[in-house]
């Protein structure tokens, strides 16, 4: 009798969790999505750098050697934002770097990273974005220099430098490091700044997270053990939560903002996972630094 009850209990539980999973898949969980939005740092590029600017309503300028990009409005406003989008449009943008009309996004939008996100995470993130208040702040067109202003060229760029799809399994990594890898690669898109790029703006894959020049042409540090071995886990954790080195020194504002928006908002487990992953990276030598700028 007792055993039977236990079976009943187990199957009920299974049924409930299946139903829940199905519901979650259909709807997306906005609360989980809010955490994912922090982990992905969406607010940074999609909010104007101005005191009191409406969050996610666009306007941040990203100055690159190819020109200046302006992050668009991603609130649910039907005209100014992405209110008319379907979930499928969102998945397509994040996974394939395509706009609802089929044309390409410039890779200033880091779909090269977001393409690695799981379906569930994308759906949850979508649910969260839908829950934001709409804001009618109009988008600003990018100011790019020729020929980079030609959107059609992005399809060539994509063929060269973009591999869509989720992360392949890496059995070498511990479960924590694997979670860290997902956070670093897919969500927090650390490599978009910390991996050096070639002349066409494609990431140098064999130099992943080795630092050098960031997209704004400023030097960024090497995140592989070559440099980080000098830091204890605790120092790293303190840095990523307080935005301060152990001697009270303050990093450049670009990283300080990432710390405020993203790393300081992560659960302690996720932060540990990121550190475990960075520790497991192959140690790459420093990129030669050109200090003429």
């Amino acid at each position: 009798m007792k055993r039977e009850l236990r079976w009943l209990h187990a199957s009920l539980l299974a049924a409930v969790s299946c139903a829940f999973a199905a519901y979650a898949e259909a709807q997306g969980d906005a609360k989980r999505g809010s955490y994912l939005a922090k982990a992905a740092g969406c607010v940074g590029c999609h909010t104007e750098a101005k005191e009191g600017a409406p969050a996610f309503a666009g306007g941040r300028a990203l100055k690159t050697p190819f020109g200046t990009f302006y992050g668009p409005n991603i609130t649910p406003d039907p005209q100014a934002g992405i209110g008319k989008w379907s979930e499928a449009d969102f998945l397509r943008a994040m996974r394939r770097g395509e706009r609802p009309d089929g044309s390409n996004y410039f890779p200033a939008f880091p779909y090269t990273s977001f393409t690695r996100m799981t379906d569930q995470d994308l759906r949850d993130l979508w649910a969260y974005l839908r829950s934001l208040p709409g804001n009618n702040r109009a988008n600003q067109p990018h100011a790019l220099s020729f020929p980079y202003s030609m959107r059609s060229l992005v399809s060539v760029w994509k063929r060269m430098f973009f591999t869509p799809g989720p992360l392949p399994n890496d059995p070498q990594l511990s479960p924590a490091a694997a979670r860290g890898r997902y956070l670093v690669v897919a969500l927090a898109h650390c490599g978009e700044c910390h991996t050096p790029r070639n002349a066409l703006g494609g990431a140098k894959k064999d130099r992943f997270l080795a630092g050098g020049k960031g997209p704004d042409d400023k030097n960024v540090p090497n995140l592989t053990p070559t440099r980080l071995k000098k830091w204890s886990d605790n120092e790293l954790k303190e840095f990523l939560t307080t935005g301060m080195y152990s001697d009270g020194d303050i990093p450049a504002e670009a990283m300080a903002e990432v710390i405020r928006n993203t790393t300081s908002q992560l659960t302690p487990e996720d932060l540990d996972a990121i550190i475990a992953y960075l520790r497991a990276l192959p140690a790459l030598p420093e990129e030669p630094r050109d200090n003429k700028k």
Partner: protein
Amino acid sequence: MNKMFVSMALALGLGAAYSLPAYSQAKPDVLVKQRQAAMTLQGKYFGPLNAMAQGKIPYDQSVVTRNAGYLDALARMPWDGFAASTKGEKSAALPAVFTDTGKFKEHQDRFQAEVTKLASVSKSGDEASVKQQITAVGKQCGGCHEDFREKR
């Protein structure tokens, strides 16, 4: 008589001008060391305030007032250490310090203004506005480090 007086004064003045550099113009490597010392001490006195602003350590009004006062003086000290003579010295200063002097000066002024404000707000003892001002100072540190200092 008058002429003699003028020329004597001139000679004295010139003498002073010639002897002045020995006191006022330190060698480039010394200037670098001194400006770094001023920066290091700012870290020392700002660190605990930043930790308080983020709730990492308990708020301590007496430490805040003391450190903010120190910082108000320290925040004025590094800048004359970035003399053109130090351009070739090994340091974390980026070339922009010497090429984009206008913007560098703007950053210094904004930073000093925020630190001075912190010193005055800290006397009010209003914890919330003190913490807010600490964050504002931190943003100025990072804003200048962004363009003018090599990443650590």
